[in-house]
């Protein structure tokens, strides 16, 4: 269908509007992170700062040891930010472990849904569908009490276990339909060659399911990386915080100004945004499959 000149112009304008809306917070966080407190305060009516600086990142990444030219007067940095490497490390370890665990557990369950005709497995599938609706706060209050009684607060393991459980249901929803599309005959051929049912799955179906595994893995990593409520409730010592918890701890701290906050936000959002752009196709397929199929 050919479009008239005017129609094209209108479509371009609409696109610019949408792009502008989507990029607005990213522009704000970038520009905010690349200037000093002084320049943010000096001119409150201009978008671009008089001068750009990387000092915010220097201060944060050195744990407050290097202050940079513009921070010579300001000596205050919250303890949580000084220990940012703990948060960075915890975020990486938690998101990676949760991704690995959910991929393994989810694949195992999804196989039984896709290949073994068992009535109770279908029932398990229904539980999974239902599970995504339970508001996390309902589960976190009792988990807090339990972990507290067991002395498991302030540990990254409790966070890993909780996140793995909350993200597993998506795995069956995304993986099972994909496993089902892989011809059963391939596994049967391997079984004739002497593979057990399980090994036929591991060696034939699983390697052919790369796209679905990538979809699910990417989605899990992003959700685990971004999650706040679980580590916020379970861990309150700087050594066990994740990046989102450190960010949350800055809310209401009147001594921390927007430039530092934006720099930390940028550090926290960069990995997941980059991951999503690299694995774009898989993330899209996973989101659509997880919502509609199953």
């Amino acid at each position, binding site marked *: 269908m050919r*479009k008239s000149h005017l129609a094209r112009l209108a*479509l*371009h304008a609409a*696109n610019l509007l*949408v*792009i502008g809306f*989507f*990029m*607005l*917070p*990213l522009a*704000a*966080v970038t520009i*905010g992170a690349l200037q000093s407190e002084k320049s943010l305060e000096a001119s*409150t009516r201009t978008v671009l700062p008089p001068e750009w600086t990387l000092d915010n990142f220097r201060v944060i990444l050195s744990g407050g040891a290097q202050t940079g030219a513009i921070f010579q007067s300001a000596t205050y940095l919250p303890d949580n930010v000084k220990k940012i490497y703990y948060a960075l490390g915890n975020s990486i370890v938690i998101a990676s472990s949760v991704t690995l665990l959910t*991929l*393994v557990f989810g*694949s*195992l369950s999804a*196989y*039984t849904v896709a290949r073994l*005709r068992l009535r109770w497995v279908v029932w398990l599938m229904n539980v999974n569908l239902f*599970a995504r*609706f*339970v*508001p996390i706060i*309902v589960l976190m*209050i009792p988990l807090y*009490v339990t972990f507290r009684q067991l002395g498991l607060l302030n540990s990254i393991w409790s966070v890993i276990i909780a996140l793995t459980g909350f993200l597993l249901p998506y795995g069956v929803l995304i993986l099972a339909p994909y496993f089902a599309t892989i011809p059963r005959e391939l596994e049967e051929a391997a079984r004739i*060659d002497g593979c057990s*049912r*399980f090994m036929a799955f*591991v*060696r034939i179906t*699983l390697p052919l399911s*790369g796209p679905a*595994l990538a979809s699910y893995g990417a989605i899990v990593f992003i959700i685990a990386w*971004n999650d*706040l*409520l679980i580590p916020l409730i379970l861990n309150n010592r700087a050594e066990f915080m994740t990046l*989102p918890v450190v*960010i*949350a701890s*800055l*809310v*209401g701290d009147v001594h921390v100004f*927007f430039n530092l*906050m*934006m720099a930390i*936000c940028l550090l926290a*959002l960069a990995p997941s945004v980059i991951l999503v*752009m690299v694995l*774009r196709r898989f*993330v*899209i397929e996973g*989101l*659509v499959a997880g*919502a*509609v199929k*199953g």
Partner: protein
Amino acid sequence: MSQPAATGLDGTAVPAASGRWRRSGAELSPRLLGVVMNLPTMATLTLVLAYPLFYAAFLSLHKVTPGELRRGIFPWVGFDNYARILSDPLFILALEHTLIFTIVSVTVEIVLAIAIALLIDQRQVWTSNVTKLLILVPYAVPPIANGLIWSFLYDFNFGFLNRILFTLGLIDQPIDWVGNPRTALLALTVPYVWRTLPFAILLVHAALQGIGRELYEAAGVDGAGALRRFWHITLPLLRPIIVVILVLRTSFAFAVFEEVLAITQGGPGDATWVAVWYSYKRSFAPPFDIGVGAAAAYVLALIVGGLAIAYVRLIYRPVD
């Protein structure tokens, strides 16, 4: 059990069909294999889903404050906690806010999602392809970072939105975006819609791909205009996916938390107290009343659970 699967997953070559894997003598029956392969999932789901769901109900019927937590004994109080929250004006207010927030954000989201999905479907317009490329970005931003970024955008004195409007010459006095109790809740819906819109757009866009070109061409022959084609062909065919989005987004919007924490902390006054915020504040801030927090969370879960049942009935029909 998880070890061999892990090797297969990260792509490393599993050793060629050697004698190790060929031993088929001791193969499990499908029934037993189903149990064994589901053990890790069932154990995890029992621990962090089934058990907490029951334990939350238990806690909501008991007195659980720091004193009881220290002693480890929770006295039975029956439905006292429920009676307390249901007679607490702040809880009712929080439920009202949650409802308003959900209705506004989900409605806006569905309308925008349909519009933007149609927009990025215009492949011959190059800016549409740019939009399509960028659509996933908000999905990846951590909700709490999103909240903090918007609190910078909204800030009265130093905020980015006011800076833009000043630069464009549209205002000469700064606007107090979240300081007004009447509009603070609406101001919260914007960041939330920003972050959650990509998911809705993607679903609508995927559904659009499933609509055959022939339908439109036939309509074109009949002389139907673009608007009529949208109303009589596109929209009816999008209905199933709109229902999915409606139910999923509604249940998630009921649990909004991060943006409230970062932007308003429930304020100004109590203008943006929502259900999860109430539950969180009662449990983990003074008075640290976990019984009351659990009761509030349970009321929320029951509301969302009703939605979930509707969803499962709508979506999950056994394959014929």
